[in-house]
């Protein structure tokens, strides 16, 4: 049964499986996820974009913005930025997302929770659920960190690649010595 499940999951999308293996390592299963955990890699615990939007509208989060982050990140598809009115509201947003993820996986053998950062202070909480990363900030933090500007500007990586191509061109050294150049066979 294990082998059948493993083969079924490994066939469709190998790259995304690697990404999910990276992600699920946080659950304390160790750095490299063994293939026996491949059964739980399926998208049950990880939230989709529609579900995240629904939860955020239920909790009445202000100013929800979705930024497709495929260009910047390989491992995430969407960044969602939401504002809370107070620290308690920000914590509530994070709790609601975790609750939704738990509900989605009711009755499963292993429950995979999305990892949460910044739970102690209510200023900036990040809920990382695989493809979708949700940032819950309060008003001041949003103005301070200014995440939308960071992500909507084009990443200027193309220029550095061209320089690298030029750098690897091989140049024949000039022979200024009085000895004749050795002819390599």
């Amino acid at each position: 049964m294990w082998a059948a499940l493993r083969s079924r999951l490994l066939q469709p999308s190998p790259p995304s499986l690697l990404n999910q293996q990276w992600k699920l390592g946080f659950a304390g299963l160790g750095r490299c996820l063994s293939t026996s955990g491949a059964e739980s890699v399926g998208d049950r615990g990880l939230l989709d974009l529609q579900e995240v939007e629904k939860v955020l509208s239920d909790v009445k989060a202000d100013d929800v913005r979705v930024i497709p982050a495929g260009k910047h990140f390989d491992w995430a598809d969407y960044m969602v930025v939401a504002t809370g009115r107070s620290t308690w509201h920000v914590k509530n947003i994070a709790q609601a997302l975790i609750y939704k993820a738990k509900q989605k996986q009711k009755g499963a053998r292993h429950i995979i929770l999305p990892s949460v950062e910044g739970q102690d202070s209510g200023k900036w909480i990040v809920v990382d659920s695989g493809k979708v990363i949700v940032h819950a900030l309060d008003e001041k933090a949003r103005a301070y960190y200014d995440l939308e500007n960071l992500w909507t500007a084009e990443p200027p990586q193309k220029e550095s690649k061209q320089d690298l191509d030029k750098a690897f061109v091989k140049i024949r050294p000039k022979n200024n010595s009085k000895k004749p150049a050795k002819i390599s066979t």
Partner: protein
Amino acid sequence: MCIQALKGKKGARLGETIVVSVKEALPNGKAKKGNVYRAVVVRAAMQRGRCDGSEVKFDDNACVLVDKQGQPIGTRVFGPVPHELRKKNHVKILTLAQHIA
């Protein structure tokens, strides 16, 4: 300058938190000289093994100043940062970074 690693006697590696004191500061920066903060190591010259057997190492040692709750003090992070920060729950630093190695 690093004072000590937060967890463990043998020192901190990539992705771990350390206690630092500021030795040089820009006059209009948020960090003042002589203050003690926490920091997260983002680049280390020591190689770090990855899941798939490859190793990562950088040319310099660098860290990002962080407060006691784990919020980065600055607003942007320059230079490449490795993937390992995601597993150590430093997604905030990853989102502020310009380039992810």
